[in-house]
């Protein structure tokens, strides 16, 4: 068969301490064919990057080759001299790294770095290299490549850095491009742009690509074939159409069904449990503990990789294609809306700024003039037991609003009030204990939200002792109860956060918030740091707790799909200004605000047929424009000067408001 890269039973181990090496990759056999895009998916730690890098003959510090080989074009990558390796790497086989921001040399300009690739891997005369660099930068669709060439990496936005990394890879005129999570960490709209770009490049240059991602949506969008990795093993391999439409391996199925759907009103089904710890030997199916179709044999011996009738490879003891499809629908995240009309929190004309005027300006009263308002003109009423989702790209001020509500950042205009009369304009320190108790926060990053030096017991009893004056024994008892309510067992009490997985940590964070029995919980991207398979479980948990406690959520997310199932109402934020707010049913169908529209288009669903096309540009705005519509710069439906200098009017129908100069009927016509 015609193949560019052939991984032959590749096994990689990691040395830790004196113990036997743990196995990171087990017997991976995989081909990359010319001109094809091979997607590589799996959860974090499943070995995707290791597979990709070993194709270049590279293993990270601490890893060692246990067996097998990586063959590129008949050359064994682990068995050639350094000079040969150097000639291949960056030449015929190129890498686009996971985090371009950190992977570009900070002390060299973009131009010099790309020139270096040209120098090492092409015979272009030095005089021509400058123009070649500009060409490459233009090819990756960077506007004003001439300027970018002379910049240092940190002077570029994340999307631009990623494009530069791609340009650098193209400089070596590769036959294979390895892309290690090239879009992770970028804004949704940017992500789509980069995927489009990659697709086009692949077509134009005829290079093969290995596209590594944890995101099935992205993989679906670009790959011809998909390989699914689980715990260092290849569990399924086939064309992307087959795999995404009709996954066979239970893991692949679970993964697909745990992805939130933009049109699904229900919380996706979570995969139970967590990926296994890697170990030396394996005597069972690695997925067995989480598998719904588990049988005795699954625990007794590891399954082989079988070729199915339709030509794909599946690692299962059974003909998993015959397992019943579907039937695993999750439940709705919302419950009856009739008891949600008692007001809880009201934000009126809220404006927030991080800029603190100096003493001089404050005295002369010029304080307010020059400051940029990170958040402006936010009006919001939250009812008891209600969930409002706040959606927007990075930097849109979502967290800022939450921080302001808890009193960490004082508002500079407007008022915030709890319905019991308590004003929230005051800083945390001077609020009443009751008020602090009523509003609790759940954080995005589970690693940083729990003190690594405290046991779970200490973490959970701290609020209990603070608010309820419990003695230690009672508090411990209650803490155990809290753990149970987030589906963790009592023996977690003695552990420290390092001994918990990400999802478990997030549960503890939730338990801590609920220890206070709050009226309002502020959730700041609580799922985005978690693996997809775990995300759904957290959403499910939150909605369960809401049902039980009647708590209201202000639920922040950058992803419209995630909040679809849990939110009662959705607020779309751009540059700290509300674009659109309304009940979830209204927001998810036309008419959209143009920005909401763009976000909708940017949602990547694991559907190989879907054609996403984002029309707004992916420039990054650092501050909102001085006047007019906040979205004026990137709007694909901009009508003219009015957008630049007049604040758009609110167009409200049935509690659904759109701030746009275009009439909402016209909008819904356009968006059909």
């Amino acid at each position, binding site marked *: 068969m015609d193949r560019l890269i052939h991984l032959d039973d590749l096994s990689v181990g990691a040395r830790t301490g004196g113990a036997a090496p743990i196995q990171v990759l087990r017997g991976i056999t995989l081909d990359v064919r010319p001109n094809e895009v091979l997607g590589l998916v799996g959860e974090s730690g499943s070995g995707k990057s290791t597979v990709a890098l070993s194709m270049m003959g590279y293993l990270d510090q601490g890893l060692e080759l246990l067996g097998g080989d990586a063959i590129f074009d008949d050359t064994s990558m682990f068995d050639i001299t350094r000079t040969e390796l150097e000639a291949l790497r960056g030449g015929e086989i190129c890498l686009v790294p996971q985090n371009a921001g950190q992977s570009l040399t900070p002390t060299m300009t973009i131009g010099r770095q790309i020139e270096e690739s040209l120098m090492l891997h092409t015979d272009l005369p030095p005089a021509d290299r400058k123009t070649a660099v500009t060409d490459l930068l233009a090819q990756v669709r960077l506007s004003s490549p001439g300027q970018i060439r002379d910049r240092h990496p940190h002077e570029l936005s994340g999307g631009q850095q990623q494009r530069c990394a791609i340009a650098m890879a193209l400089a070596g005129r590769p036959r294979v491009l390895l892309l290690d999570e090239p879009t992770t960490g970028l804004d949704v709209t940017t992500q789509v742009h980069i995927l489009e770009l990659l697709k086009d490049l692949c077509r134009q240059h005829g290079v093969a690509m290995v596209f590594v991602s944890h995101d099935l949506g992205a993989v679906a969008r670009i790959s011809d074939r998909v390989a699914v990795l689980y715990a260092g093993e290849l569990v399924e391999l086939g064309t992307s159409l087959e795999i995404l439409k009709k996954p066979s391996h239970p893991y692949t199925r679970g993964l697909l069904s745990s992805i939130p759907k933009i049109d699904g009103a229900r919380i996706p089904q979570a995969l139970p449990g967590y990926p296994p710890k890697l170990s030396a030997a394996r005597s069972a199916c690695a997925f067995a503990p989480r598998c719904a179709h588990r049988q005795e044999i699954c625990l007794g011996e590891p399954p082989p990789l079988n070729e199915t009738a339709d030509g794909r490879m599946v690692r299962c003891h059974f003909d998993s294609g015959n397992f019943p499809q579907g039937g695993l629908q999750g439940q709705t995240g919302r419950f009856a809306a009739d008891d949600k009309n008692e007001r809880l929190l009201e934000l009126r004309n809220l404006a927030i700024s991080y800029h603190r005027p100096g003493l001089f300006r404050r005295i002369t009263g010029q304080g307010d003039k020059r400051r940029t308002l990170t958040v402006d003109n936010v009006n919001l009423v939250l009812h008891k037991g209600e969930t409002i989702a706040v959606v927007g790209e990075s930097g849109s001020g979502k967290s800022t609003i939450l921080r302001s509500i808890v009193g*960490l950042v004082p508002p500079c205009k407007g008022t915030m009030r709890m319905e019991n009369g308590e004003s929230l304009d005051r800083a945390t320190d001077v609020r009443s204990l009751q008020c602090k108790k009523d509003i609790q926060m759940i954080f995005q990053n589970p690693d940083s939200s729990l003190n690594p030096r405290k046991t779970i017991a200490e973490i959970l009893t701290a609020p209990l002792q603070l608010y309820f004056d419990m003695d230690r024994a009672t508090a411990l008892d209650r803490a155990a109860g809290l753990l149970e309510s987030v589906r963790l067992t009592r023996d977690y009490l003695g552990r420290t956060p390092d001994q918990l997985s990400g999802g478990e940590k997030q549960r503890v964070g939730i338990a801590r918030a609920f220890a206070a029995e709050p009226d309002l919980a502020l959730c700041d991207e609580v799922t985005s740091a978690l693996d997809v398979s775990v995300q759904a479980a957290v959403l499910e948990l939150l909605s369960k707790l809401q049902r039980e406690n009647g708590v209201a959520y202000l639920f922040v997310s950058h992803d419209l799909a995630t909040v679809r199932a849990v939110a009662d109402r959705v607020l779309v934020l751009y540059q700290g200004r509300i674009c659109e707010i309304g009940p979830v049913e209204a927001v998810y169908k036309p008419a959209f605000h143009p920005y909401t529209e763009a976000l909708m288009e940017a949602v990547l669903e694991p559907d190989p047929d879907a054609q996403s096309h984002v029309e707004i540009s992916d420039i990054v705005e650092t501050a909102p424009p001085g006047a007019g519509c906040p979205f004026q710069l990137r709007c694909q439906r901009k009508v003219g000067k009015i957008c630049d200098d007049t604040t758009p009017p609110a167009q409200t129908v049935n509690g659904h408001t759109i701030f746009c100069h275009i009439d909402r009927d016209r909008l819904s016509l356009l968006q059909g």
Partner: protein
Amino acid sequence: MIPAADAIRFGTGRSRLAGTVIVFRDIVSRPVGAIGLFLVVFHLLLAVAASFITPYDVALQNADRILQAPSWAHPMGTDSLGRDVFSRTITGGRISIVITLVSAVIAALWGGLTGVSLGLVGGRIDEWCMRLVDAFLAIPGLLFLLLIVSFTGGGVYALIPTLAFFNGISVIRIGRGAAQGVAVKDYITAARVRGHGSRFIVFQEMMPNLQDILLVEWAMRWSWMMLAFSSLSFLGFGATPPTPDWGLMISDSREFLTVAPWAGVWPAIFLSTLIIGINLFADALGKALRVNPQQGVI
């Protein structure tokens, strides 16, 4: 090799004591750490036990035995006043160890607490305090030491507050830097939003995360102070005769190096091994706790 921090992370049975044991094992499992710990413990024990082992009175002079080469009676020879070098050498660390150890502890405590508070408070207060700290750092500590020792006449123990104060200043920077790293963590925000007081935040939330850094810093300070103290003794500002003290002994025997090297070499070896020991120990401690020992202090 798994750093101790990881061992704690992935271990199962656990308690604070177990944590300490793990760190200890980690230190000992590194050759560097084992040697360092051995040297430090050796010198500490010696300092405690010296008076029970010394064959001669450390101040006993003997005109018949001036600058004698090592022998059975005097395993390290005698000095220029006929005193037993062995007795004096094993006792010679006492004063300096006591003074520097105490000073280092005080320095790490006051500097650490101040630094942590500044790191937490931030803002203008922090800004101005740091200018003051910079000012203190700008003037060589030795100058202050000499000035205060010679003007207050408090003798060698006046060094304790002085050493502690000026070293504490340097610790402030370390503590503050580390605290700034911790202060932005969400769990601190969480505690603050929850409504805990600053005492709780500093002692319950921040300190547990900073104690490792301060511990390593303490060890580095200790080593630095040993050096500084020996220099002071050498210059005639530290221990006073006839107290046996390494720095002083080296200074006194310097001129006889060509004819009676033993009188100076032994104290030099003891002094250096202790400082090397502390340094190795601090390095290993830093590795075990995953703290970068502070860049050399000058």
